[in-house]
């Protein structure tokens, strides 16, 4: 077109053609092309992307799930055609096409708010830019994300956000990992025009875990939506309007929810940060190690951020099947217990009752001597809540070699049944809970026992209006539930069909029954399980395609212990024992131990067990060793060492292997691979890490139990959510939480 104009000018100047004569060729210096001539042909041909561009892959290597493959629609993102499922928003379509659109208020797991306006993109045939997070993608839409209009929109939004944002970057904990910093560098303009004074907001006290600097808040409302939707508490809200908007609790309340720490991750700016981590480190000095949480049986995936020998903070890792992106407060903040009350030297209790630090040689020599003076039937071993599978394997092997079969794990009760796997794991996997439509909770309070399982149940209740029936002591769950009763009598009524809830169960498509591991400690455990199995049969909960009969475990070590076969010979072997080996076991009833018994405590914290111990052998905590843990749904995962061991401590299984050699009953493995191949001969599923191994046989193989059910109502297995094991009991932050945040 330009050339035509040029040629007409030269022709006019040359004087050959006088102006005034109508020459259509010169006046209209439009170059004519075939598209202009043929209007229909142009519309039918879409702009095809230049053939040499690489194929676009979704952002972050995500997979796209098409629930209805016939319903896929095609949109064009920056000229590139992409197929998306129906119902997706423009932002999600761009994500599939590989374009990451900046956003502050949108989060894939929360409802859509659309109030930050940072995700504005240009859509053809639309008078103004659209908020891509809220606009559903229609077929044939042409989305443009890199036009000058979209860029100007982003710069403008950034300018507005930064107007009232304080200049806190040097003192803000979020510096280095702040969405506002990153997006202003990438999408903001280089200069500001703000010359007035900024507004400031008073800080709110949300408890000992979440530090608030509300001046930095950009009112994205992510925290409000998280608290109402996922945590189930309606603590936070937006007060006021316009520039006077404040996020807070309207009354002076602390955030008592067990998921309150996740708002720290969700907040894109430094308004909500971690109080224990305040001013401690910058994110670029930290080394992240991917590991597993051991405070409860869920096995949430975490990332331990450490600086040198110290754990600085714990962040969640994405695992869609287990914990999505959230972790409970206990998991997030208990790490300061790893620095207190640590055992770092072997110690022997002298005749005056005081401990004396000795060398490993002497300590192991003393233990070996004592163990040979005792009869095999008087040797007892107890594995603790935080023991990994390798150390439990070594303990069982060693004690079996010494002639004793009284090894068990805490929390499994006096007579655990490890034969049928489906009797002690969560057969509906944690992600499978989303498909259930009726829940029956028996003797379990998932909110304090396994917070992530509770979050999943709440997600199902919200999304599918699932019904929840609860049998146990009065407790508050953050979703609507029916309190059916407090004791086993209610279970009998449901099994016989006399209870109104039985009909709900029978009519359910996917019923899910969850029994808590607190039932293991009861004397009538078999009777209760047989009643529950009757209920499951009448509700058709166990089918080839759906197994709804679950057990919710309490400790990280229980499932692996039962997989490895840590079942004691007799239930009350402690009262008649002379040699007790406590491997991190603090919940053993110390009164039951006889006065003349020799107690060896092998652990990492000086908790309850050491008060009765005669010898202390220091071992490493979960953040310092590579151990295999099986979670409540039967998925084996390994922790990775993030920090070096404290003092003279050793790994648990290494101590037992060294002890076996000194005692003359040498175990046949001396490296991690060797002990793992030994584990493979016993329980091969422990080696398949990150894979959930479902149970093959159902309860129908169990023999009939003739036990009488007692009328004692169900109790609470977890009294204090914040202090459940040796590390959490040693933590100052957990002590503050249990003092201020527990509901009295």
């Amino acid at each position, binding site marked *: 077109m330009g050339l035509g104009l040029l040629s007409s000018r030269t022709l006019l100047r040359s004087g050959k053609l006088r102006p005034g004569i109508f020459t259509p060729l010169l006046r209209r210096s439009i170059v004519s092309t075939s598209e202009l001539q043929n209007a229909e042909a142009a519309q039918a041909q879409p702009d095809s992307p230049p053939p040499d561009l690489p194929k676009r892959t979704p952002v972050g290597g995500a997979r796209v799930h098409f629930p209805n493959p016939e319903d896929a629609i095609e949109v064009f993102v920056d000229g590139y055609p992409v197929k998306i499922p129906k119902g997706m928003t423009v932002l999600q379509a761009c994500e599939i096409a590989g374009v990451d659109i900046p956003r502050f208020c949108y989060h894939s797991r929360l409802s859509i708010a659309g109030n930050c306006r940072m995700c504005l993109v240009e859509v053809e045939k639309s008078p103004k830019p659209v908020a891509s997070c809220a606009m559903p993608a229609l077929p044939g839409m042409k989305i443009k994300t890199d036009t000058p209009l979209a860029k100007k929109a982003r710069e403008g939004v950034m300018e507005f956000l930064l107007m009232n944002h304080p200049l806190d970057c040097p003192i803000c904990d979020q510096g280095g990992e702040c969405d506002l910093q990153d997006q202003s560098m990438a999408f903001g303009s280089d200069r500001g025009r703000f010359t007035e004074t900024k507004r400031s907001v008073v800080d709110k006290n949300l408890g000992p875990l979440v530090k608030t600097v509300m001046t930095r808040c950009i009112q994205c409302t992510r925290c409000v939506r998280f608290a109402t939707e996922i945590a189930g508490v309606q603590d936070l809200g937006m007060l006021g309007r316009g520039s006077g908007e404040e996020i807070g609790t309207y009354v002076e309340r602390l955030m008592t929810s067990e998921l309150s720490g996740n708002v720290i991750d969700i907040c894109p700016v430094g308004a909500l940060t971690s109080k224990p981590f305040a001013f401690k480190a910058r994110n670029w000095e930290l080394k992240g190690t991917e590991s597993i949480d051991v405070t409860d049986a869920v096995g949430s995936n975490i990332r331990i951020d450490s600086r040198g020998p110290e754990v600085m903070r714990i962040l969640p890792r994405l695992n869609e099947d287990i914990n999505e992106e959230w972790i409970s407060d206990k998991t997030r903040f208990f790490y300061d217990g790893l620095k207190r009350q640590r055992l770092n030297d072997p110690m022997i209790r002298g005749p005056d009752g005081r401990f004396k630090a000795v*060398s*490993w040689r002497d300590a192991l020599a003393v233990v070996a001597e004592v163990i040979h003076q005792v009869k095999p039937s008087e040797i007892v071993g107890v594995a603790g809540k935080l023991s990994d599978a390798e150390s439990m394997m070594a303990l069982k092997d060693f004690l079996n070699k010494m002639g004793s079969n009284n090894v068990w794990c805490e929390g499994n009760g006096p007579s655990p049944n490890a034969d049928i796997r489906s009797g002690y794991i969560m057969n509906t996997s944690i992600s499978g809970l989303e498909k259930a439509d009726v829940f029956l909770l028996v003797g379990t309070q998932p909110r304090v026992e396994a917070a992530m399982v509770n979050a999943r149940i709440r997600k199902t209740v919200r999304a599918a209006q699932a019904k929840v029936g609860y049998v146990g002591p009065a407790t508050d769950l953050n979703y609507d539930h029916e309190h059916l009763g407090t004791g086993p009598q209610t279970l009998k009524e449901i099994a016989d069909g006399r209870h109104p809830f039985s009909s709900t169960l029978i009519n359910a498509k996917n019923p899910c029954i969850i029994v808590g591991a607190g039932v293991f400690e009861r004397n009538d455990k078999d009777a209760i399980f047989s009643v529950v199995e009757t209920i499951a049969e009448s509700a058709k909960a166990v089918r080839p395609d759906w197994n709804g009969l679950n057990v919710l475990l309490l400790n990280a070590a229980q499932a692996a212990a039962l997989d490895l076969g840590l079942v004691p010979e007799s239930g009350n072997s402690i009262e008649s024992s002379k040699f007790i080996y406590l491997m991190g076991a603090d919940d053993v009833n110390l009164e039951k131990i006889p006065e003349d018994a020799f107690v060896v405590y092998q652990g990492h914290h000086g908790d309850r067990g050491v008060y009765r111990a005669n010898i202390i052998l220091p071992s490493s905590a979960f953040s310092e060793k590579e151990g295999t843990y099986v979670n409540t749904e039967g998925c084996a995962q390994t922790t990775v060492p993030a920090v070096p061991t404290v003092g003279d*401590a*050793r*790994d648990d299984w*290494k101590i037992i292997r*060294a002890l076996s*050699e*000194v005692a003359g009953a*040498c175990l046949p493995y001396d490296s991690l691979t060797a002990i793992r191949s030994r584990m493979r001969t016993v329980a091969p599923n422990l080696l398949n890490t990150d894979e959930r191994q479902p149970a093959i046989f159902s309860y129908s193989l169990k023999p009939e139990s003739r036990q009488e059910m007692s009328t004692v109502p169900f109790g609470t297995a977890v009294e204090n959510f914040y202090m459940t094991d040796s590390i959490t009991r040693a933590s100052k932050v957990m002590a503050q939480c249990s003092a201020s945040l527990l509901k009295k």
Partner: protein
Amino acid sequence: MAHLMKNLKVPPNSTSREEARKRTFDFFRLACRSIPNIMEIYNLDDVVTPSQLRSTVASEIRKNAHVTNPKVIDMLLFKGMEELKNFVDHAKQRHHVIGQYVVGRKGLVQDLGPKDEGISNFLKNFYSSNYS
């Protein structure tokens, strides 16, 4: 100091193992006689006792007890003599003495003693540290 000057000139190689053995013992005696001097130079009275230093020297010599070649023994003695001369001449400093020959010498008596003969590699590594 004076007795060290004698060994300045490099002696010819020892002809046999017995002569090398004799030279080793002479070196050890030389070192032990210089120890009070070294303790005075570097003010080690509060840090170690002469007996501990003697044990340290002995263990260093014992570390190479497995060597049989007289020429190699001569070379090791030459290097040992050089170290000793450095310390006696105050060419090294206090932190060298302490760091190289005082700290971390707990295993002196237990160094390859009779009770360690029957234990496996695993147990030896276990006693020393968690990461071996």
